[in-house]
């Protein structure tokens, strides 16, 4: 079991990146830096957000006004969109979508505020260094850990080319700074910045490829005439999208890792709330814990519900 700790981080910055999507950068204390020195993309941390103030009523999205009033006690799991070790320590980026009482409160984090974290937790993505392409499939808020993975691969596996496929219902649900270029088509500036080619897919075609992100990848696989052993799929997003990704991986015989999401009470293997059904001898095999055995699983092992 890798190192994991309960520690404090200091907010360096917290800002809205587009309506409903925010990014917080946190500077870890020395204990956190130690724990995060070998963090893998796809791991997560449990943030304590119960002590943060509620933003003023007019800043709370109308559809969340009722939910926002809930007094919260549990931590919340978040993965990281990047982890940068600088001279003064480690800074992690958390990209988050505002959709409930905890994330509403996170909007009011300000520089200098302190946040308690437990992490890094769970098992992240395992990069296959022999594959030519690492295809990163992100659905909606699935973005953060894959961004980290892209950068991680660029830094450590020069032989592997990461390529991101970023899907969402429509343009306004894409948590990126999307650009359009005559040559490259639609791409995300965030991935561009880390030197990762990206493709955009929207269900409604409001930008990029029209259709599911899995269809977009499939088209690319065909166009490029990729051989199964040349590529690995790394995906994160809503469960239907992950199931489609696994089906695609099966069809083409490509290895595939999926990052699963579950409501988690503890994040550290105490409560059994976060189980994921896995394949076994019979119909389904044992449940595994998303927080300990995952969140990243081999696509072959997961039984989607």
């Amino acid at each position, binding site marked *: *079991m890798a190192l*994991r*700790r*309960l520690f404090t981080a200091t907010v360096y910055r917290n800002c809205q990146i587009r309506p409903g999507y925010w990014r917080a950068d946190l500077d870890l204390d020395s204990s956190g830096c130690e724990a995060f020195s070998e963090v893998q993309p796809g791991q997560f941390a449990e943030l*304590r957000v*119960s002590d943060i103030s509620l933003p003023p009523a007019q800043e709370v999205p109308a559809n969340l006004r009722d939910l926002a009033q*809930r*007094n*919260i*006690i*549990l*931590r919340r799991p978040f993965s990281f969109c990047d982890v940068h070790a600088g001279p003064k320590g480690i800074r992690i980026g958390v990209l988050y979508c505002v959709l409930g*009482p905890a994330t509403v409160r996170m909007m009011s984090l300000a520089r200098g505020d302190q946040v308690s974290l*437990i992490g890094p937790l769970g098992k992240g993505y395992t990069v296959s260094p022999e594959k030519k392409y690492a295809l990163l499939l992100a659905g909606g808020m699935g973005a953060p850990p894959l961004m980290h993975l892209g950068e991680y691969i660029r830094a450590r596996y020069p032989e592997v080319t990461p390529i991101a496929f970023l899907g969402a219902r429509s343009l306004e649900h894409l948590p990126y700074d999307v650009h359009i270029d005559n040559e490259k088509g639609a791409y995300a500036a965030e991935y561009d910045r880390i030197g990762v080619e990206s493709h955009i897919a929207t269900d409604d075609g409001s930008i990029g490829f029209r259709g599911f992100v899995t269809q977009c990848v499939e088209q690319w696989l065909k166009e490029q005439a990729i051989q199964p052993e040349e590529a690995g799929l790394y995906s994160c997003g809503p469960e239907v999208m992950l199931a489609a990704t696994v089906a695609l991986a099966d069809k083409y015989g490509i290895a595939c890792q999926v990052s699963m999401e*579950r*409501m*988690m*009470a*503890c994040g*550290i*293997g*105490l*409560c*059994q*709330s*976060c*189980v994921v059904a896995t394949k076994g001898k019979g119909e389904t095999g*044992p*449940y595994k814990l998303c927080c300990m055995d995952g969140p990243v699983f081999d696509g072959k092992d997961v039984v989607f*519900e």
Partner: protein
Amino acid sequence: MSESIDLTVDFAGLKAANPVFTASGTCGYCNELADFMDLSRLGGFITKSITPEARRGNPTPRIVETDSGMLNAIGLANVGVDLFIKEKLPAIAQMNTLVFVNLAGQTMEEYVAVAEKLSLRKEVAGFELNISCPNVKEGGITFGTDPAQIEQITSRVKNAVGGKVLMVKLTPSVTDITATARAAVNGGADALSLVNTFPAMVIDIETRRPILANRSGGLSGPAIKPIAIYLVHRVFTEVAGPGHIPIMGMGGIRTASDALEFLLAGATAVAVGTATFAQPDCAIRIIQGMEEHCRRKGISSIRNLIGGLQ
């Protein structure tokens, strides 16, 4: 200043280093919390419910947060007693604290079967009889509300535990908790633990469905603390105190002050459940806080507080 405070308590003949336990289902099987605390500093540890066979438990979502609380419907998911013995007992042997195994089953025979398999294991200090789980159809809470059944199951399991301590865990969802408490005592319980969670439900108004896959679940956390305190106090004054039966108090404990409230109400020890999720080292902080409280108030032994409500 640094004069040492005696935090030890006698719990049904077992000597606990202090009154703070971790509660069943919220601290894993054995050493899951070891990264966050020195487990040997605990007063004691109560395992997840163990059944004769492995149980997968309920589908997800199994939990949902509520105001100052949470619902769970884990459904007694566990590895089963045999794997528990093989894989978890060795780690328990290293923990150097009092370990209670929480027993569950669908029939009386199942409870007895688990108890028998563990009755001779020296790693196990005692048992907690879970007859109050709101999240399984069979067994569970139905046993826990009928005094006659409580007395019967307690005495049958008591015969199977080979002289180890048997603690019976009560549900708060009864008209008269002194009746169920008395039934357990009559059945031979060495200790009582209360409270288990309250049957509860959260509905998603968008989908018009309950959030939990099991539809309902058990409410725990600070939200229920004042009810738990009331019930512990009633059981202490009307049943346990007069019979010198120790109480393990639980329900919403998060701070040393909370724990001290339970002791004053009549608990000899307390168990920390939901709060551990938010703060994994919560139990240790509580032990420290208790010691500070005693020092500040000039209390030499924590035992002086038990049942001390004026």
